Structures are given as structure tokens and as C-alpha cells.
């Protein structure tokens, strides 16, 4: 008699990815409405509706919604989408769960450029945008070209290590400029915490095209990224052009994270945790992970921003701090669940 050996029965982890996507879209919509309604003064849905559809120049509700909350909410939506997608891309391309969107030197490059801008006497948050973007771009260009060999492009490990080294180098330069300069430190410490407040409509308008282009590139990169996840050699054998896929992915990260950092300061942490949370919902397929991670990023950032406005009314708590205080515990709970850890 031959005994048949049955594999041990395991409850399969089923994932309803379409359901997750729809739920996230709803969550983003709700967060968007909440962000318009809540703040120093609470507005009813009817007041918001009137302010958006039929603005009445005289009413305070219209002024609050159109001048203050709408630009800020749109910016939060854009930045959240950007960081969520960039984080998923970055973790996929470096095959490293510790990768965040700033790893390519983007956060450090932007910070360095902003400190230089402060020293040159540039003031105002809008003044820093182009400095930050240029810094992020140059730093990530340096990382990519150092990580890339003569041909074949960078491997996940060299990309991560070169990014880490350039980031450390640049933030050392930044810190050594700040350490002798209390005045600059006083300005910089508010920029570096990261916040959505005080950015007018023009900031959202300026970064929107970059984020839109980045999102399109990110979605286009998803199938190739799935193949790259099997290892560069296997991907090559499957017919992927590895260097091209890597370049598209890194370009998308730079556009997304560079624009986000330029607009709001380095809130890269969002892009570090959100992809892990999204992966628990969708599994490792990047065609689902990237859109879900983007939506989860937007919902998280908007909710964190609203909480920041409410807890110390009428003052505000910086978004970066709320994310750490509220987002991180939620993330820990998620990771502790049985199906919470989906390995890259």
C-alpha cells in the first residue's frame, strides 16, 4: 500500500483586491470631504457644497473652503498619492523593505538645497520649491550613475547602498552648515518636519504636472517591476529590458518624491509604511500594489492632516508628527496580524 501524503491543510489567505481598491477610493473621498469640513471652524456638508458649486464671495464658508481648505486638501491628495506610489516603486526596485522614497538621496538632496536657499536669503515656502526639486534631482542622478555599472544598470543592492551613502553625505553637509548658524536652523527646523499648512494654491498647481507624470510612469512600470522581482537575470531571460525598466522606475520615483518633498518637506516616512500596509491588502503584485499604495498614502496623509488641525485647535500639529504618533501605531497593529506581513 502506498500511503498518500496530503499537504497540511492551511487556511489560504484570500485577498479581495478589487474590494480593497474600491474601499480605498471611498476612503480617499471621505478623507477629502473631512479635510474640507473640519478645522478651526466646522462646516456642514451643505456649506461645503455651496462653497464649491455656487461660491458666494461674501460668505465666510466660501472663503474658508476655497482659499484655505481646498488648496491644502488638493495638495495633501497629490502628495499622498505621490509618496504612496513612490514608496511601493522604491521598495520594489531595491527589493528592500527598508527603502523609502527618499532613499535615492531625494530627501537629503532637497534638504541640502533648501539650507543653501536659506543662506542665500530666499524666504517663504514657495521660494524653496525649485531649490528642493533641483537638489532632489541632482542627488538622485548622482546615486543612479554611481550605482550603475558600465552596463546593465544598477542592481537593487548597489542602488540602495549608493542611495544610503549619498544621503548620509549630503545630510552631513546640511548639518554642518546648520550647526554654526542658529538663524538658519530656526527656519530649517520647521521646513524639515514636513507640513501641508501655509502652502497656497500655486504650490499644488506647480507640483501637479510632475506628480501626474510620475504616477503614469509608475503604473506603466508595474508589470516590468513584477518581472524584476524574480531577480535581474530571470527578468532578462523573460524578455525584460532591465536597464530601461529600472530607469523608468527611478525616474518616476524622482518625479513623485522630488515634487512631494519640494512642496511639503521630507515626509518620506509615509512612503515607507504605506506600501507595507497596502501589500497586506493586495499581495505582492505591483499592478495592484502601486495604485492601492498611492490611494492609501493619500487617505493616510489627509486623515493625519485633519487630526493635526483638530488636536491642538486653533493651532496645528505638524503632519509629520501626527503621522508618527497615529500612523505608526496603526502600522504596528497591522503588521502584528497573522497575514499582516507580506514579504517582498
Amino acid at each position, binding site marked *: 500500500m502506498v500511503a498518500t501524503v496530503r499537504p497540511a491543510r492551511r487556511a489560504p489567505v484570500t485577498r479581495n483586491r478589487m474590494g480593497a481598491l474600491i474601499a480605498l477610493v471611498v476612503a480617499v473621498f471621505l478623507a477629502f470631504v473631512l479635510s474640507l469640513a473640519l478645522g478651526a471652524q466646522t462646516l456642514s456638508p451643505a456649506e461645503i457644497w455651496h462653497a464649491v458649486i455656487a461660491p458666494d464671495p461674501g460668505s465666510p464658508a466660501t472663503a474658508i473652503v476655497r482659499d484655505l481648505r481646498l488648496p491644502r486638501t488638493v495638495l495633501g491628495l497629490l502628495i499622498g498619492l505621490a509618496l504612496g506610489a513612490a514608496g511601493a516603486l522604491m521598495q520594489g526596485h531595491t527589493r528592500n523593505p*527598508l*527603502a523609502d522614497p527618499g532613499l535615492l538621496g531625494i530627501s537629503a538632496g532637497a534638504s541640502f538645497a533648501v539650507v543653501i536657499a536659506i543662506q542665500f536669503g530666499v524666504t517663504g515656502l514657495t521660494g524653496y520649491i525649485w531649490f528642493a526639486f533641483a537638489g532632489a534631482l541632482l542627488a538622485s542622478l548622482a546615486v543612479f550613475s554611481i550605482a*550603475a555599472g558600465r552596463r546593465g544598470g544598477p542592481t537593487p543592492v548597489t542602488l540602495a547602498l549608493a542611495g544610503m551613502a*549619498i544621503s548620509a553625505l549630503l545630510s552631513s553637509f546640511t548639518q*554642518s552648515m546648520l*550647526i554654526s548658524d542658529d538663524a538658519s536652523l530656526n527656519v530649517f527646523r520647521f521646513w524639515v518636519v514636513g507640513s501641508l499648512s501655509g502652502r497656497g494654491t500655486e504650490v499644488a498647481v506647480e507640483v501637479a504636472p510632475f506628480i501626474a507624470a510620475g504616477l503614469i510612469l509608475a503604473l506603466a512600470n508595474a508589470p516590468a517591476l513584477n518581472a524584476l522581482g524574480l531577480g535581474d537575470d530571470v527578468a532578462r531571460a523573460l524578455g525584460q529590458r532591465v536597464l530601461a525598466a529600472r530607469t523608468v522606475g527611478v525616474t518616476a520615483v524622482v518625479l513623485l518624491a522630488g515634487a512631494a518633498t519640494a512642496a511639503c518637506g521630507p515626509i518620506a516616512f509615509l512612503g515607507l509604511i504605506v506600501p507595507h500596509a497596502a501589500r497586506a491588502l493586495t499581495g505582492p503584485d505591483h499592478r495592484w500594489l502601486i495604485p492601492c499604495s498611492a490611494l492609501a498614502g493619500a487617505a493616510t496623509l489627509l486623515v493625519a492632516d485633519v487630526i493635526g488641525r483638530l488636536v491642538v485647535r486653533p493651532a496645528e500639529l505638524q503632519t509629520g508628527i501626527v503621522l508618527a*504618533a497615529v500612523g*505608526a501605531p496603526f502600522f504596528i497593529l497591522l*503588521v*502584528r496580524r497573522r497575514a499582516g506581513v507580506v514579504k517582498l
Partner: protein
Amino acid sequence: MTATLVRPPGRRPVAAGPIGGTVSVRSVVVGLAGLVATAAVAVFSISHGSFTIPPGDVVDTLLGGGTAAQKLIVLDLRLPRILAALLVGAALAVSGALTQTFARNPLASPDVLGVTNGASLGAVAVIVLGGSSVIGVPLAALAGGLITATIVYVLAWRRGVDGYRLVLIGIGVGEIAIGGVNWFLVRAEIIDATRATIWLNGSVAGADWDQVRPLSTALVVLLPLAVATAFTLQALQFEDDVARALGVRLQLAQAAVVLTAVALAAAAVSAAGPIEFVAFVVPQIALRLCGGSRPPLVVSAVLGALLVSGADLVARTALPGRELPVGLVTAIVGAPYLLWLLVRTNRRTT
């Protein structure tokens, strides 16, 4: 039938009593070269300062000779500082090598175990809230680091600790600590914020024998412990199941490695502040210089001591009349070297 033992190329057999194994020739050469360089940096650093003592006299004084003035300057003023730099460097580098092997991730450093960020939160809280006269910044940092690491480990426990989950929970908890640090920095007076920023950059400037003594005690206990885990590390660098199949008691071995790494990092951070980059860069440099599949422990310790002592020398002599925090110089010196090693390896393999 005779079994044929295949020795890996480039390794020599060694035996000390009942314990035997093979040692990579390249590691020995790199380690010895590192030791010589470290000794040279240490002697030069002691001789160099506002009052220069010739290197020959420094060695003489260290060996028990020298005039009374030389003894005061060398033994009481300059030796504690250089010792602190050497010990902190070695502790951070070994902690980093342990973490990177155990987490199977070259980006991992003691930060992902929550130690550094927790220590920063403890120290910054004490500085900003003005309690530094009550508890002292080093003690607050030590407590913050150990408590945070314990929280991470407990939260990651679900019928055993999975390395991947531990890392994810570590970054979550670490981020809460960073959020706390930023919150303190934003609401602090600018004087306290500056003081906290200086501490956050790391420095061995104020080190005296009171700091060196506990630090060296910690290292005397922990470094042999780290080397003792090397046998299980060799298996831990593979998947959990492979490590179990190789006969490692996974949870016990992991706990020993994590505990050693956390204790080393906490001791170093409490003495000198978070000199974060050392724990990341030194194991990667050592790995590339020695070859092999995981960062070597002993060579990492030597190169860590070399990097931090060299960086401290640069930090205090580069600008006349002003000191840079050593944590900044380690990155300015270490990062380009790692980048150069990466570029060189790329050229050779592609």
C-alpha cells in the same frame, strides 16, 4: 573510503585547543592593517592638540614614562577621548554587522531595532524638559534605547520573532520616537534645540574616564559575546527554515544576536550620541574589503574604531578654534569610501 575535506580557497586552518576552524587570509591582512592604522591615528591624535607632544613621548608616557605635565595631558585629558572614540566605533560597527546579518538586509542598522531613535528621544526629552541635572543625558539615552528596543522585541513576538516582522515593527516604533524628537525640537527654545541638535549629531568631545570606564566594561563583555554568536550567524544569514535545518535553535540564536546588537548600540549611543552612519557603513566596507557572504565581526570592530577615531581627529583639527561633531565627519569620510568601493566592484563585475 576516505572522505575528502574541501577547504574553501583563500582560507587557512587554525586551531586553539578544542576549537578549530578556517580563517580567511584576506581578513587577517585587512584586520592587521586596520589595527596598525588605528594605533597610528590614536598616537597622532594624542600628540596633536593645543599643546603638541612628540609621538615618541606619547608612546613613552602611555608605557609609564613621561614627565608629570605629559602624564596629565596624555593620560587625563586626551587618552579618555581617543579611547571613547575607539570603543564607540568598535561597538557601533559590530552592532551594525550583527543587525545586517540577522535582518539579511544591508540597509539595516541598530536604528531598525529602535535603539538609536529611542536613545535620541530619551536624551532630547531630558535636554528640552530641563531634567538633565536630575538624570543626566547619557543615562536618559541608555534608558531610552533599551526600553524602545524591548518594546520592539515584545511587539514583534507572536509565538516567536520573525526577523522581517521585527524590522517592520522596529521602523514603526523608531518612527514614533523620531516624531517625539521632532515634536520636542519644534516646541523647544532655540537654545535647547541647538543643544539637542549638537547631541543628535554625536560627539566624543566631552569624554572623560567616568564615561570610558562603563563603556569599556560593556565592550569587554559584549564583544566576545558577539564573536561567540558568529557560529550561529553563519547559519542565520540564510532563511529561517535553512537555519533550523542546520541545527540552530532559531529563537534563542536570534534573541542572543539581537540582545548583543542592542546592548552594544545602546552603550555607544549613551556615551557619544547617535553616530548613526558608522553602524551602516563600516560592516559594508569590511565586507567589501574581506570578501565573504556576511560582514565580518572582528574586522568591522577594527575598522569602526579606525573610522571614528580618525573622524574625531579630523573633527577637532579641521577648523581652527572650532570643533565639528564627529558624527558629521564619519559620513563625510566613510560615505565617499563606500561609494568608491561600489564603483570599483561594479567595474570589475560588469
